């Protein structure tokens, strides 16, 4: 039985990776899944812990999914890492694919304690009050942390890699096939051979259905990060899992109470095959001993033992499991220092400097958050940069921040209207955010969730500056915030900033190339107000009620 465990584990790994990819793919407009599409992110206890501790609030939808993984770890140690984690499986697959074998155990760097120190540092970033009370213009009434968990959490990292790298790449390929088929379908050749059309057209309709080209910035950066994690396998298989992953550290720590033990019988010949085969270097020198907090339960040791000396036992038998973490006090202090630095550095960056007598920072002009987003300080600490919101956004409007909001907002979602506007009929980003950094919202609420305000650049606007018949912005506006001012027989756009929610439909539609003559700025961002307050604000503006007129009675 025990010998079959490795095979079972591989099946489980492939199944969970497939589920991860499927859920990622199905997180899309008009598609519903029986489980939340962000299931893996929600089940990640580190993300749940960070989102609740750093933002100082209880997020039940996260808790319910994270608890099973905690229980799993208490019972089976780091089984999540060996059997479920899609990042671990991806690393395993890449190591196979690229023939990365790692250095021999004796030569591989032994940095396994590093991940615990990193975990300590991350915990500190969650706990430290980074944005403190009283600052009314911050729009928060309590202290929040500045969690850096997004940088190192494996599930967030992998989801981000899928969102920003794998998805655009796949869509590029689908787009190329689709465009080629489309053009081929119109060619004279197909015209002459009608049977070809009957073959090509259904395929083209299929590709056309799934083709939705997406473009993201920071793709290369994200790709190199993931590629680096895989490449580290050169120094030891699953280098990331054994030395860096803070989630692995957390689960290993929880797994110390696990009753599961690997027992080595007297048959052992000290051939050292288990030592060499162990993915995470949990069996160090003596094959009869292993590190409990390191073992990911891959059970390769059982599978490779030529004399079947290794077996799995539950409790009792005093096997050679060593549960001590052996952390060094000096290093612990250094880790704490690193955690403090990780909070201070973004907070003293130039980009965090606030403008005089204004709530906004210098880096905020184009900081347009998706609707439903928390006020900026809780938002940046809750957001794990998984990129799910960017993935589901049907207009490709959400992009990873690079500059907007400063260092602390790196890779968090911002609306870039010129790429795509916030479509009035969509509330997907709020429904897929695992940490509730974007709170769920209804489509009706969108008419008063103010993201920013549009401003017409009258020097660029072809209606204002060149007397052209345009008003495309007025056409495009979903909320009737733009009206026309007729002067000299030409209609020119004027914006009512009380109605404008900053969705960016106008900026996207503006024909002035390349940057448009109407821009959304974060000046109208009203996230610091509650939804009720925002609604009251909106209702102060009397708009003509939309009604059906009797006809003919114009």
């Amino acid at each position: 039985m025990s010998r079959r465990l490795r095979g079972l584990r591989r099946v489980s790994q492939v199944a969970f990776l497939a589920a991860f990819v499927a859920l990622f793919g199905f997180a899309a407009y008009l598609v519903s899944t029986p489980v939340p599409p962000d299931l893996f992110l929600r089940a990640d206890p580190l993300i749940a812990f960070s989102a609740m501790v750093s933002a100082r609030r209880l997020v039940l939808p996260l808790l319910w999914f994270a608890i099973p993984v905690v229980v799993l770890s208490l019972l089976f140690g780091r089984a999540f890492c060996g059997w479920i984690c899609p990042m671990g499986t991806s690393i395993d697959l890449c190591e196979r694919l690229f023939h990365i074998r790692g250095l021999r155990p004796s030569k591989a760097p032994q940095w396994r304690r590093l991940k615990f120190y990193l975990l300590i540092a991350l915990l500190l970033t969650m706990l430290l009050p980074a944005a403190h009370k009283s600052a009314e213009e911050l729009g928060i009434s309590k202290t929040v942390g500045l969690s850096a968990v997004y940088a190192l959490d494996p599930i967030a990292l992998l989801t981000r890699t899928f969102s920003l790298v794998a998805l655009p790449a796949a869509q590029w390929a689908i787009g190329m096939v689709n465009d080629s088929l489309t053009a081929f379908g119109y060619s004279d050749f197909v015209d002459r051979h009608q049977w070809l059309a009957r073959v090509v057209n259904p395929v083209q309709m299929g590709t056309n259905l799934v083709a939705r080209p997406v473009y993201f910035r920071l793709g290369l950066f994200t790709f190199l990060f993931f590629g680096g994690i895989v490449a580290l396998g050169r120094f030891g298989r699953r280098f990331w899992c054994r030395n860096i992953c803070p989630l692995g550290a957390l689960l290993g720590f929880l797994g110390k109470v696990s009753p599961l033990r690997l027992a080595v019988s007297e048959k052992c010949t000290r051939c050292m095959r288990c030592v060499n085969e162990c993915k995470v270097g949990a069996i160090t020198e003596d094959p009869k001993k292993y590190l409990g907090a390191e073992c990911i339960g891959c059970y390769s040791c059982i599978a490779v033992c030529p004399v079947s000396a290794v077996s799995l036992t539950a409790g009792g038998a005093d096997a050679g499991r060593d549960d001590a973490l052996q952390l060094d006090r000096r290093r612990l202090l250094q880790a704490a220092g690193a955690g403090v630095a990780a909070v201070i550095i973004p907070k003293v960056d130039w980009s965090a400097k606030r403008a005089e007598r204004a709530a906004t920072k210098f880096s905020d002009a184009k900081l347009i958050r998706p609707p439903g987003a928390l006020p900026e300080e809780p938002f940046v600490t809750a957001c794990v940069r998984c990129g799910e919101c960017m993935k589901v956004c049907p207009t490709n409007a959400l992009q990873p921040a690079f500059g907007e909001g400063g260092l602390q907002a790196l890779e968090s979602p911002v609306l870039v209207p010129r790429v795509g506007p916030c479509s009035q009929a969509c509330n997907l980003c709020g429904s897929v955010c695992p940490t509730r950094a974007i709170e769920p919202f209804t489509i009706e609420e969108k008419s008063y969730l103010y993201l920013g305000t549009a401003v017409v650049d009258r020097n660029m606007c072809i209606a204002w500056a060149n007397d052209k018949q345009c008003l495309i912005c007025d056409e495009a506006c979903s909320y009737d915030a733009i009206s026309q001012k007729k002067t000299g027989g030409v209609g020119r756009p004027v914006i009512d900033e009380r109605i404008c929610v900053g969705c960016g439909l106008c900026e996207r539609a503006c024909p002035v190339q390349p940057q448009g003559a109407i821009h959304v700025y974060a000046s109208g961002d009203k996230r610091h107000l509650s939804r009720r307050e925002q609604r009251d604000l909106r209702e102060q503006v009397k708009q003509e009620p939309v009604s059906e007129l009797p006809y003919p009675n114009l």
Partner: protein
Amino acid sequence: MTREEITRREFFKRAAAAGLVAYGAAELSGLDGIPEAEAATPPTIVVASKKKPAELVRAAVDALGGMKKFVKPGDIVVLKPNIAWARKPEQAANTNPEVVAEVVRLCKAAGAREVKVIDHLIDPGEATVLKMSGIGPAAQAAGARVISAGSLAMYQRVSIKRGRTLKTADVLRDLMRADVWINLPIAKVHSGTGVTLGCKNLMGVVWDRGAWHQSASLDQCIADFAVQFRPRLVILDAVRVLLTNGPKGPGKTASPGIVVAGTDPLAVDSFGVTLLGRKPQDIGHIKLAYAAGVGEMRLDRIKVRNV
């Protein structure tokens, strides 16, 4: 076969002469500003009212001689409704889905090999727009292929031969290759051009619409395009019309419960203008289209058949 040898000089001479003749002919035949339809018999349009949307369409088309008159068996038919916005049918921003579906059924019944419902959507998120407008599901159920023309590969460059402002346009390949194409606009007011009816609806078959807005005159571009691209049939949806804050709304709507059909695109448009409480001579692009000879705009010269 012997070839006539000519000198280079002779070639230039002949070419210049031929060019001059061609230019003169074009100038004369174009009769800039004088409508060609002057001498022709006044166009007839059919106005169907007091029925359900699908019945309105059937009554109007039957009064024009039935769909068989326009669509021959085996034809590939392209329908161009207005599916620009992520709006629901009751907001009257897109063509009524029941009207579109009925035209699809009539084309199918007339023996069309394939019916394609195509538009170049404006609002982002084609799945949203097609679903909200109701046209996606309705036309598909009626047997049409619904195409959102969102990639440049679906357009081809066409020169607008008699265009005054508009010289070239990237036009839908499907439209260029169709045996028959039918324009299915909805009647709405429009912030930029006063109204949007059939001629304005044709902006949805070109790729770069922004260029028209940036040109010297949007109205002239619409007229230029309408000269070259004449639908076999125009079926104007005025079942429900948008009276304020067009073309996208949300605005005040009204329900004339009318479908107008005709083969003279400008006659249908001119009648449509009156449904919105305005006059054809107040609408820039209709005046220009009339001047360019697209059709009749004088209401007293349009024969209206009520059914």
